[in-house]
């Protein structure tokens, strides 16, 4: 299950730390299933980006699949 987001970030930067986001390993989970994924995060404060495409695309598909398990 590939939920890693390799999409362009839309050039978001962390507003709190004023640094660009970097790819980092994050765990996402739903209904008792967890997956390590690569998402863009702020290297300083850890604020993570889930893009609209990811949320409404692959993430929604995985949610649907897990709901029917």
């Amino acid at each position, binding site marked *: 299950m590939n939920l890693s987001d390799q999409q362009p970030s839309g050039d*978001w930067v962390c507003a709190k730390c004023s640094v660009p986001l970097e790819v980092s390993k994050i765990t996402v989970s*739903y209904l008792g299933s967890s997956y390590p994924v690569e998402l863009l995060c702020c290297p300083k*404060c850890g604020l*993570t980006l889930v893009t609209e495409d990811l*949320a409404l695309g692959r993430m929604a598909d995985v949610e649907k*699949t897990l*709901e029917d398990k």
Partner: protein
Amino acid sequence: MDQIELHDFEAQCIQECAPACTAACPLHVDARAVCAVVSKGDFSAGLQLIKKALPFPGIVCRICEQPCREVCLRDKSLAMADLERACLEFGIEPQAKAAQTVKRKQRVAVIGAGLNGLTAALDLAKKRYPVVVYEASSVLGGRLNSFSENKLPRAVVEKEFNKLYELGVEFRLNTAVSSSVGGGAVTLGELLHEFEAVYLATGSASTLNIKEAGLGSVDPQTRATSQPGIFAATDIGLSANSMPIILAMADGRSAAISIDRYVMKVSLTASRSNEGPYESCLYTNTEGITAAPVVPMNDKFYSQEEAIKEAGRCLQCECLECVKYCEYLASYDGYPKKYARSIYNNLSIVMGTRLANKMTNSCSLCGQCAEVCPTHLDMGALCKQARQTMVIQKHMPPSAHDFALRDMQFSNSDHFALARCLPGADSCSYLFFPGCQLGASAPQQVEKVYDYLRGHLSDVGLMLRCCGAPADWAGRQDLFKAALDEFSNIHEEMGKPTLVLACSSCYQVFKQNLPDLNIVSIWEIYDQYGLPETTNSKKGAVVSIHDPCTIRHEPQIHESVRRLVRQAGYKIEELPMNREKTSCCSYGGDVWLANRELSDKVIERRIAESGNDYLTYCTMCRDFFASKGKPTLHVLDLFYEDDLGARAERRGPGYSERHENRARLKKKMLKEIWRETVPEQSKIEGIQLILSDEVRQVLEDRLILVEDIQQVIEYAERTGYRLLHPQTGRLLAHYKPSQITYWVEYAPHEDAFEVYNAYSHRMEIAEELKS
């Protein structure tokens, strides 16, 4: 649901019952299937079907009495024997399989070579029993020999009987069998020594008397006599030709089944229903079918073209009454019997994908199927029960009903919930309960109805809250019970007043679940006390009334509404499916949440049923129909609105506005009637948003509420956890108030925040925030 409940439910669905023709045929020729293939010109497939059912098809198609024709639902019954004949003439026999030559040890004697005995002999020989047929006369066929050569050529008979020789059946002609020595060449006793079983099929010409032979009586189901191993036809000793030929053949077939079971030492009686002719349980609606005469024959038998045409007259009988009217039942390519199996299997899955979750959640639970079904089978009851099981099993998809449950939670929170007797009173005789959606869509009408009620009823209090229907639809028995209990407690404190209901769903919930409660609909009250003075009468305007599905069983409400509408000057043209058979708008059961695509189809179908404007008395029905462009009025619009044209075309408010309307209604009522001060809005509610129409539509489609957005912005602005897009200056923030993470793209704009986009997901991100 256990296996027994499943089987009971499946048995109630009659779609798979044999059609009347097949049930009436003693040998159960699948006449419907024969017609289906012949109408497409496939005579070979027809031949296969006929040969599967008939022992001697060449004979049967020439002399059958055709009991199928007496029950055929076509105006002029199908010429079935002629169609069988056409299959024999034009169908191509497949390559015959090599017959199994190894015979069984147990031998069977058949006494009498009429069609009854010969059918038994043929069936037993096919099962590899060595069979010997005893016949007192010198010929086979019994009464077949009385038919003219023209009607039944000898060559045909010989060809059919040849099968018996090919299967090794032996014949002892001119050999009478008697029950005692001296009565004939062979005695029954002798046969019993030689054979494992004996079948007496001596018909009307019988010299054997069952009783005199000491055989007792013949069991009509098994053809067994009191003497083990001796079976007898049911037409023994009857007057000649009193049993139809086709029935006599079925008699022989049943005897062969019994003899096989007797020899194999298994139960003679188990699973023997529907042997021989019976009455079909299949219902077929023949309304609107145009008459068509039997296709005439130009020759001795049908030509291919004639047969194709005649077979095409077959109605292909089936029930599907529920499927015809219900978009949901039509959308899964089956019928309740199949669906019940899928839903049952879905609940039984331990590991793997539950493929019928969506199907279970897509029913509106409206009960229309039970009204149109000849056996009153209710898919809604099954789906509701299955949802409750899914919840208990912790397999209910959270996304299916969550939004509706949160809406219910909102309505039963301090934002909306309110219960007051009249100012100064601590009990009341009546209690107006408008429900959650009237206040959400037309809050001003709640005020006006309450004014009217106070003007006509002695003392009437007000209760704003949700009846709990969304929890019931979601299978959440825990939440449903809690909602009803909370209601009951408050209701009791108010002196158990009579509930005056504006919403049909509330009416159904209270009637079914709190049967001791006194309830009345506002429509009955208006009917009793008359139209309000503000009623916008339109002389002669024509409307079609859509009855809400949840009060399908309340004819007094249907009548009250119709009287009121007529008094207001309207002419009513009834929709084809109305009153107890009315359709759901797709709000019921949360179809609109679980299956948006289906919900759209349900609405489109209902609004296409008449070109008239619709008039209904359920807020959600009105808003759903209007959402697809159907001018639809609520009956309260007639009473209290001026511009009915605009009112009919009005799109219902969005989900956020529904919350705001409810909250505002509560505050207004409290202030104006009870003079109570209302707490100031919270900091979060005070966050001002700028939302374009486009963004509002996105929020609607994604089921994101203004209050969700306010929470994200409040969190982001308070903590500073925001992403920035340097080129545009826009911010992106997320927050997870409970189960769902909401993302909002926004920018501060003076005292407000302009929102550009929002989306959400249910997956949880294990984000570790450091300050």
